[in-house]
Protein backbone atom coordinates (compact mmCIF):
# COMPACT_ATOMS: atom_id res chain seq x y z
CA UNK A 1 0.00 0.00 0.00
CA UNK A 2 1.57 3.15 -1.20
CA UNK A 3 1.70 6.01 1.18
CA UNK A 4 0.23 9.05 -0.42
CA UNK A 5 -0.18 12.47 1.12
CA UNK A 6 -3.89 11.70 1.33
CA UNK A 7 -3.27 8.71 3.53
CA UNK A 8 -1.01 10.66 5.81
CA UNK A 9 -3.54 13.43 6.19
CA UNK A 10 -6.27 10.89 6.84
CA UNK A 11 -4.22 9.09 9.45
CA UNK A 12 -3.42 12.34 11.14
CA UNK A 13 -7.08 13.41 11.14
CA UNK A 14 -8.23 10.00 12.34
CA UNK A 15 -5.82 10.01 15.24
CA UNK A 16 -6.67 13.58 16.04
CA UNK A 17 -10.43 12.89 16.03
CA UNK A 18 -9.99 9.80 18.17
CA UNK A 19 -7.90 11.65 20.68
CA UNK A 20 -10.01 14.80 20.93
CA UNK A 21 -13.38 13.08 20.93
CA UNK A 22 -12.31 10.79 23.75
CA UNK A 23 -10.87 13.73 25.63
CA UNK A 24 -14.09 15.66 25.08
CA UNK A 25 -16.05 13.18 27.13
CA UNK A 26 -13.43 12.27 29.69
CA UNK A 27 -12.11 15.63 30.77
CA UNK A 28 -13.65 16.91 33.96
CA UNK A 29 -13.87 20.57 33.12
CA UNK A 30 -16.68 21.70 30.93
CA UNK A 31 -14.66 24.46 29.25
CA UNK A 32 -12.00 22.00 28.23
CA UNK A 33 -14.67 19.68 27.05
CA UNK A 34 -16.03 22.40 24.78
CA UNK A 35 -12.55 23.19 23.50
CA UNK A 36 -11.86 19.56 22.59
CA UNK A 37 -15.22 19.49 20.87
CA UNK A 38 -14.11 22.46 18.82
CA UNK A 39 -10.98 20.57 17.75
CA UNK A 40 -13.07 17.55 16.88
CA UNK A 41 -15.32 19.68 14.73
CA UNK A 42 -12.32 21.18 12.96
CA UNK A 43 -10.95 17.74 12.29
CA UNK A 44 -14.33 16.65 10.97
CA UNK A 45 -14.25 19.61 8.62
CA UNK A 46 -10.81 18.33 7.62
CA UNK A 47 -12.37 14.96 6.74
CA UNK A 48 -14.90 16.73 4.53
CA UNK A 49 -12.11 18.62 2.79
CA UNK A 50 -10.31 15.37 2.32
CA UNK A 51 -13.38 13.92 0.67
CA UNK A 52 -13.54 16.92 -1.61
CA UNK A 53 -16.65 18.39 -0.01
CA UNK A 54 -15.20 21.84 0.53
CA UNK A 55 -18.53 23.62 0.87
CA UNK A 56 -19.68 21.15 3.49
CA UNK A 57 -16.40 21.58 5.33
CA UNK A 58 -16.81 25.36 5.22
CA UNK A 59 -20.33 25.11 6.53
CA UNK A 60 -19.10 22.82 9.28
CA UNK A 61 -16.48 25.35 10.31
CA UNK A 62 -18.72 28.40 10.05
CA UNK A 63 -21.86 27.00 11.64
CA UNK A 64 -20.35 24.66 14.21
CA UNK A 65 -17.06 26.21 15.07
CA UNK A 66 -18.19 29.76 14.51
CA UNK A 67 -21.79 29.72 15.67
CA UNK A 68 -22.54 26.84 17.96
CA UNK A 69 -19.27 26.92 19.85
CA UNK A 70 -19.80 30.57 20.68
CA UNK A 71 -23.18 29.63 22.05
CA UNK A 72 -21.60 26.86 24.11
CA UNK A 73 -18.92 29.05 25.54
CA UNK A 74 -21.37 31.75 26.48
CA UNK A 75 -23.77 29.35 28.10
CA UNK A 76 -20.90 27.73 29.98
CA UNK A 77 -19.89 31.10 31.28
CA UNK A 78 -23.48 31.85 32.21
CA UNK A 79 -24.22 28.61 33.97
CA UNK A 80 -21.00 27.42 35.51
CA UNK A 81 -21.51 26.96 39.19
CA UNK A 82 -19.18 25.69 41.83
CA UNK A 83 -20.34 22.12 41.74
CA UNK A 84 -20.02 21.71 38.00
CA UNK A 85 -16.43 20.63 38.07
CA UNK A 86 -16.91 17.76 40.43
CA UNK A 87 -18.67 14.96 38.69
CA UNK A 88 -18.38 11.63 40.31
CA UNK A 89 -20.29 8.67 39.10
CA UNK A 90 -20.57 5.25 40.56
CA UNK A 91 -18.19 2.58 39.34
CA UNK A 92 -21.00 0.17 38.64
CA UNK A 93 -22.60 2.70 36.38
CA UNK A 94 -19.35 3.44 34.67
CA UNK A 95 -18.85 -0.25 33.94
CA UNK A 96 -22.38 -0.64 32.66
CA UNK A 97 -21.92 2.27 30.29
CA UNK A 98 -18.52 1.05 29.16
CA UNK A 99 -19.91 -2.41 28.53
CA UNK A 100 -22.77 -1.03 26.49
CA UNK A 101 -20.51 1.27 24.50
CA UNK A 102 -17.88 -1.34 23.80
CA UNK A 103 -20.58 -3.87 23.01
CA UNK A 104 -22.17 -1.43 20.58
CA UNK A 105 -18.78 -0.72 19.00
CA UNK A 106 -18.13 -4.42 18.67
CA UNK A 107 -21.47 -4.94 16.97
CA UNK A 108 -20.79 -2.11 14.56
CA UNK A 109 -17.33 -3.40 13.72
CA UNK A 110 -18.80 -6.84 13.21
CA UNK A 111 -21.27 -5.39 10.76
CA UNK A 112 -18.55 -3.48 8.93
CA UNK A 113 -16.48 -6.61 8.58
CA UNK A 114 -19.40 -8.65 7.30
CA UNK A 115 -20.95 -6.15 4.90
CA UNK A 116 -19.58 -6.12 1.38
CA UNK A 117 -19.12 -2.44 0.59
CA UNK A 118 -19.10 -1.77 -3.12
CA UNK A 119 -16.55 0.99 -3.07
CA UNK A 120 -16.79 2.72 -6.45
CA UNK A 121 -15.49 6.17 -5.63
CA UNK A 122 -11.81 6.82 -6.04
CA UNK A 123 -9.51 8.97 -4.08
CA UNK A 124 -9.38 11.56 -6.77
CA UNK A 125 -10.60 14.71 -5.24
CA UNK A 126 -13.39 15.90 -7.41
CA UNK A 127 -14.82 19.21 -6.43
CA UNK A 128 -18.60 19.44 -6.08
CA UNK A 129 -19.30 22.81 -7.57
CA UNK A 130 -21.23 25.48 -5.72
CA UNK A 131 -23.33 25.96 -8.81
CA UNK A 132 -24.62 22.44 -8.92
CA UNK A 133 -25.25 22.59 -5.18
CA UNK A 134 -27.27 25.77 -5.50
CA UNK A 135 -29.23 24.41 -8.44
CA UNK A 136 -30.08 21.22 -6.60
CA UNK A 137 -30.94 22.97 -3.40
CA UNK A 138 -33.36 25.36 -5.05
CA UNK A 139 -34.88 23.14 -7.69
CA UNK A 140 -37.91 20.93 -7.45
CA UNK A 141 -36.88 18.34 -10.03
CA UNK A 142 -35.74 14.77 -9.39
CA UNK A 143 -32.61 15.72 -7.52
CA UNK A 144 -34.02 18.91 -6.08
CA UNK A 145 -34.16 19.66 -2.36
CA UNK A 146 -36.45 22.68 -2.36
CA UNK A 147 -38.99 21.19 0.02
CA UNK A 148 -36.46 20.13 2.70
CA UNK A 149 -34.76 23.46 2.27
CA UNK A 150 -38.00 25.35 2.96
CA UNK A 151 -38.84 23.02 5.80
CA UNK A 152 -35.47 23.67 7.38
CA UNK A 153 -35.91 27.39 6.98
CA UNK A 154 -39.31 27.33 8.69
CA UNK A 155 -37.78 25.09 11.33
CA UNK A 156 -34.98 27.53 11.98
CA UNK A 157 -37.46 30.38 12.24
CA UNK A 158 -39.47 28.41 14.74
CA UNK A 159 -36.29 27.78 16.72
CA UNK A 160 -35.41 31.44 16.77
CA UNK A 161 -38.83 32.36 18.11
CA UNK A 162 -38.83 29.44 20.54
CA UNK A 163 -35.38 30.26 21.81
CA UNK A 164 -36.38 33.83 22.48
CA UNK A 165 -39.58 32.84 24.20
CA UNK A 166 -37.89 30.25 26.40
CA UNK A 167 -34.88 32.26 27.36
CA UNK A 168 -36.55 35.59 28.01
CA UNK A 169 -36.98 36.68 31.59
CA UNK A 170 -40.38 36.22 33.06
CA UNK A 171 -40.82 39.33 35.07
CA UNK A 172 -44.40 38.94 36.05
CA UNK A 173 -43.97 35.52 37.61
CA UNK A 174 -41.99 36.50 40.65
Amino acid at each position, binding site marked *: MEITIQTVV*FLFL*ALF*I*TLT*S*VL*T*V*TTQRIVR*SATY*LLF*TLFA*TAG*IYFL*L*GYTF*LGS*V*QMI*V*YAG*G*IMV*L*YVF*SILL*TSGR*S*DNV*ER*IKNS*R*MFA*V*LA*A*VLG*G*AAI*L*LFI*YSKYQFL*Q*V*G*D*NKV*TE*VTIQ*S*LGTNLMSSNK*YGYLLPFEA*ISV*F*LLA*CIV*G*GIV*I*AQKEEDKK
Partner: protein
Amino acid sequence: MISIICYLIVSTIMLCAGIYGFFTRHNLLAMLISVELMLNATDINFAVFNRLLYPNGQEGYFFALFSIAISAAETAIAIAIMINIYRNIRSIQVDKINKMKW
Protein backbone atom coordinates in the same frame (compact mmCIF):
# COMPACT_ATOMS: atom_id res chain seq x y z
CA MET B 1 -7.04 4.57 -1.72
CA ILE B 2 -8.34 4.70 1.80
CA SER B 3 -10.83 2.01 2.61
CA ILE B 4 -14.31 3.06 3.68
CA ILE B 5 -13.85 0.93 6.77
CA CYS B 6 -11.23 3.38 8.01
CA TYR B 7 -13.64 6.28 7.82
CA LEU B 8 -16.31 4.21 9.48
CA ILE B 9 -14.02 3.27 12.32
CA VAL B 10 -13.27 6.92 12.95
CA SER B 11 -16.95 7.79 13.04
CA THR B 12 -17.64 4.79 15.25
CA ILE B 13 -15.10 5.95 17.75
CA MET B 14 -16.66 9.39 17.73
CA LEU B 15 -20.15 7.94 18.17
CA CYS B 16 -19.08 5.72 21.04
CA ALA B 17 -17.33 8.60 22.73
CA GLY B 18 -20.56 10.60 22.41
CA ILE B 19 -22.63 7.79 23.90
CA TYR B 20 -20.18 7.34 26.72
CA GLY B 21 -20.24 11.05 27.50
CA PHE B 22 -24.00 11.18 27.37
CA PHE B 23 -24.29 8.55 30.06
CA THR B 24 -21.47 9.56 32.33
CA ARG B 25 -21.84 13.32 32.56
CA HIS B 26 -24.21 15.04 34.91
CA ASN B 27 -23.91 18.48 33.46
CA LEU B 28 -26.56 19.14 30.88
CA LEU B 29 -24.13 21.11 28.73
CA ALA B 30 -21.67 18.25 28.72
CA MET B 31 -24.47 15.94 27.70
CA LEU B 32 -25.34 18.27 24.88
CA ILE B 33 -21.70 18.30 23.76
CA SER B 34 -21.83 14.51 23.67
CA VAL B 35 -24.95 14.68 21.53
CA GLU B 36 -23.06 16.95 19.15
CA LEU B 37 -20.33 14.37 18.92
CA MET B 38 -22.84 11.70 17.96
CA LEU B 39 -24.42 13.94 15.35
CA ASN B 40 -21.02 14.68 13.89
CA ALA B 41 -20.29 10.99 13.61
CA THR B 42 -23.44 10.48 11.57
CA ASP B 43 -22.58 13.48 9.40
CA ILE B 44 -19.25 11.92 8.60
CA ASN B 45 -20.99 8.70 7.66
CA PHE B 46 -23.41 10.51 5.36
CA ALA B 47 -20.57 12.26 3.58
CA VAL B 48 -18.43 9.14 3.33
CA PHE B 49 -21.22 6.94 2.01
CA ASN B 50 -22.07 9.55 -0.55
CA ARG B 51 -18.52 10.05 -1.65
CA LEU B 52 -17.24 6.51 -1.67
CA LEU B 53 -20.30 4.43 -2.50
CA TYR B 54 -22.51 6.65 -4.63
CA PRO B 55 -20.28 9.42 -5.98
CA ASN B 56 -22.80 10.41 -8.65
CA GLY B 57 -25.56 11.35 -6.23
CA GLN B 58 -25.69 14.14 -3.67
CA GLU B 59 -28.12 12.74 -1.09
CA GLY B 60 -25.51 12.22 1.62
CA TYR B 61 -24.12 15.64 1.03
CA PHE B 62 -27.43 17.32 1.54
CA PHE B 63 -28.30 15.17 4.51
CA ALA B 64 -25.10 16.25 6.19
CA LEU B 65 -25.87 19.86 5.34
CA PHE B 66 -29.38 19.71 6.74
CA SER B 67 -28.14 17.80 9.73
CA ILE B 68 -25.76 20.61 10.56
CA ALA B 69 -28.60 23.12 10.32
CA ILE B 70 -30.85 21.02 12.51
CA SER B 71 -28.17 20.47 15.11
CA ALA B 72 -27.53 24.20 15.22
CA ALA B 73 -31.21 24.85 15.84
CA GLU B 74 -31.42 22.07 18.41
CA THR B 75 -28.41 23.42 20.26
CA ALA B 76 -29.87 26.90 20.36
CA ILE B 77 -33.16 25.69 21.82
CA ALA B 78 -31.49 23.32 24.27
CA ILE B 79 -29.22 26.05 25.56
CA ALA B 80 -32.18 28.40 25.94
CA ILE B 81 -33.94 25.77 28.02
CA MET B 82 -30.82 25.21 30.12
CA ILE B 83 -30.43 28.88 30.83
CA ASN B 84 -34.03 28.98 31.86
CA ILE B 85 -33.51 26.03 34.18
CA TYR B 86 -30.37 27.58 35.57
CA ARG B 87 -32.26 30.76 36.26
CA ASN B 88 -34.80 28.84 38.29
CA ILE B 89 -32.76 26.34 40.27
CA ARG B 90 -29.25 27.78 39.95
CA SER B 91 -27.90 24.52 38.57
CA ILE B 92 -27.97 22.48 35.38
CA GLN B 93 -27.00 19.17 36.92
CA VAL B 94 -29.34 16.61 35.48
CA ASP B 95 -29.98 14.85 38.80
CA LYS B 96 -31.20 18.05 40.40
CA ILE B 97 -33.88 18.67 37.84
CA ASN B 98 -36.71 16.90 39.59
CA LYS B 99 -39.12 19.72 40.24
CA MET B 100 -41.04 19.60 37.01
CA LYS B 101 -44.24 19.23 39.02
CA TRP B 102 -44.61 22.94 39.46
